[in-house]
C-alpha cells in the first residue's frame, strides 16, 4: 500500500527500472592478457542520449561488440527486459538495436541505394517464397523502402551517389553511408561508434540535430565519440571508460570537471 502511493509521486530516488532500456552488469572480456573490458556496469534510460568516452584502447568498441553480440564475454546484458548476452548478433539486433562500426563496413559491390534498402527489418520479400507468392506486397514494400532510402540519402547529402558502388565512396562518405544504413531501421536503441570522425563540420551539426530529433521521438542513443564538444552538446549523460573500467558517469558538465577524467583523458586544466 505504502509503495503504491509512493509511485504516485514523480520523485524517484534511483532510476526507475522499467525505464531502463539497457542495463549491463559486470561485463568482462579479456583478449589473452589484455583486459579490454574489465567489469563494466552501466544503465541507459529510454529516450536519452548517452555518450561513451575514454582514451584509445579504453574498451569502448569492445563494449559495443559485447552488447551487440559480436563478442562473447562474461556478465549480464539486459535489453528491454530480456537477457541478450547469450544471443547471436542477428537476434540481438532483432530485439530492436542497431549499431554502426568504427571502421565503416560498406558493402562495396552493392550500390549505395542497395546498401540502404537492405536494412529495414521483416521485409516480405526476404522470404524466398514471397518473391513469387506475394509479388504485389513485395513490390509495394520495395517502393516504400526505396522512397525512405532516398529521403535518408538526401539528408546525408549523398543522394547523387545512389547508383554508385559503395566501394567507390570516399572514407567520409562511407562513414555517412554506415550511419544512413542504420537510420533505415527504426530501432529502440541506436549505438553509434564515432559518428563524427571524419565527417565535415556542417554535416556533424546536422547529424547532431537529427539525433536530437529522433531522441524527441523516443529513440535511445549510445554514442562513442572523441569529439568532446560535440558529444557533450548532444548527450544527457556521459560515461567515461579507462583501461576496461568505468571511470565515472554523470551529466556532461560534471564529467568535464572530474579530476580523474581530466587526468586520463581530457588533459590540461579542462
Amino acid at each position: 500500500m505504502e509503495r503504491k502511493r509512493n509511485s504516485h509521486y514523480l520523485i524517484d530516488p534511483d532510476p526507475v527500472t522499467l525505464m531502463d532500456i539497457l542495463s549491463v552488469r559486470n561485463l568482462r572480456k579479456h583478449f589473452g592478457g589484455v583486459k579490454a573490458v574489465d567489469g563494466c556496469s552501466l544503465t541507459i534510460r529510454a529516450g536519452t542520449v548517452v555518450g561513451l568516452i575514454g582514451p584509445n584502447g579504453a574498451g569502448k568498441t569492445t563494449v559495443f561488440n559485447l552488447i551487440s553480440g559480436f563478442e562473447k564475454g562474461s556478465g549480464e546484458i539486459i535489453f528491454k527486459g530480456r537477457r541478450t548476452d547469450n544471443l547471436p548478433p542477428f537476434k540481438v539486433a532483432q530485439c530492436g538495436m542497431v549499431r554502426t562500426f568504427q571502421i565503416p563496413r560498406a558493402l562495396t559491390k552493392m550500390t549505395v541505394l542497395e546498401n540502404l534498402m537492405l536494412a529495414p527489418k521483416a521485409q516480405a520479400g526476404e522470404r524466398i517464397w514471397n518473391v513469387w507468392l506475394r509479388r504485389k506486397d513485395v513490390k509495394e514494400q520495395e517502393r516504400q523502402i526505396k522512397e525512405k532510402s532516398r529521403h535518408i540519402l538526401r539528408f546525408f547529402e549523398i543522394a547523387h551517389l545512389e547508383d554508385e558502388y559503395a566501394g567507390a565512396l570516399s572514407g567520409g562518405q562511407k562513414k555517412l553511408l554506415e550511419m544512413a544504413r542504420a537510420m533505415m531501421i527504426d530501432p529502440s536503441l541506436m549505438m553509434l561508434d564515432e559518428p563524427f570522425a571524419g565527417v565535415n563540420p556542417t554535416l556533424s551539426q546536422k547529424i547532431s540535430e537529427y539525433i536530437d530529433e529522433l531522441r524527441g521521438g523516443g529513440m535511445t542513443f549510445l554514442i562513442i565519440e572523441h569529439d568532446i564538444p560535440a558529444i557533450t552538446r548532444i548527450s544527457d549523460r556521459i560515461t567515461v571508460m579507462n583501461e576496461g573500467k568505468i571511470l565515472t558517469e554523470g551529466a556532461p558538465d560534471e564529467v568535464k570537471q572530474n579530476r580523474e577524467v581530466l587526468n586520463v583523458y581530457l588533459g590540461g586544466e579542462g
Partner: protein
Amino acid sequence: MIEYVSVILPYVTTILLISSIYAVFALGLNLEWGFTGLINFGHAAFFAIGAYTTVMLNISGCPLVLSVAAGVVLAGLFGLLLGIPTLRLREDYLAIVTIGFSEVVRYILLNEEWLTRGPFGIHGFERPLQDVIPYQYYNTFLLILFVAILGIVYLSIEKLVRSPCGRVMKSIREDETVPSALGKNVFSYKLQSLAIGSAIAGLAGAMLAFYLQYIDPGTFKPIETFHAWIIVVLGGTASNRGTIVGALILWTFFSATKFINPYLPFTSHQMGAFRMIMIGLLLMLLMMYKPEGIFGKKEELALSD
C-alpha cells in the same frame, strides 16, 4: 548442301544440348558462389544425386516426372544436410567438406552395386515423351525441352537475386557482419542458397541422364565441379547471362578440339590432357585481359578491398 545440313545440324544440336545442361548446372553454382559467396567444391555430387535418383526411381517403376522431382528435392536436401554443420563455421569449411562429400558420393555409387549397379552404370530408363516423339526428331525435341528448362531456371534465379532475399544473399557475399548487425539470419540464407543451388544441380543431373541415356559413377568425377567453376569464372561471376554464355563457350571449345583431334598427333587420352592445358591457358589469358569474366562488371572487381 543437304549433306552440310545433315552433318552440321546434329553437331550443333549436340553442342547446344550439352551446353544447356551445363548452363543449368553452373547457374546453381553461380547462385551459391556468385551471389552468396559460398565455396562449393563438390557441386558434382549434387549432379550425381539428381541423375541417379531420377533413373533409379524410374527403372523401378516411378513415373518420370515424379522421379525427376524426387532427384531435385533429394539433391536440395543433401545440400541442407551438408550446410547445417558447416555453414556456421568459417567459409573454408564448406569447401573442404564438399570436396570430401563429392568423393564419398562417387565411391558409394561405385561400390553399392545392389543399389546403383556400381561401375556397370545404369541404362534402359525412360526419356521424356520417348514414345511420342519420332526417333529422328528426338534430339531436336530434347533441345527444345532443355532450352525451356534453362529459360525457366534462368528467369527464376534472376527474379530471386533481384529480390530483397537476393539482396541479403549479396550482402553476405560482401561482408556477413553487416546483415548480422541488421538482424538478418545469415546462416539461414546461406542454407537456402546452398539447398537451391544443389537442387538446380540435381535437375541438371536428370537432364544429363536423359541426354546420355546411360550414367555411371565415372560420369560425375570432380572434374565436373571444375567445369562448373570454369563456366562461372569465364562468363563472369554473379552474371547469370555470363554463365549461360560461359557454358556455350566451354562446350563449343571442347567439341572443336574433338573435331581437330584427327589432325593432331595425340591419342584421345592425350587429347583430354591437351584440352585441359588449353583451358588453363584460356583462363590465364582471361585473368590477364578480362579478369571480371565476359559479362562480369569491371567495377565490381576493381572495388574489392
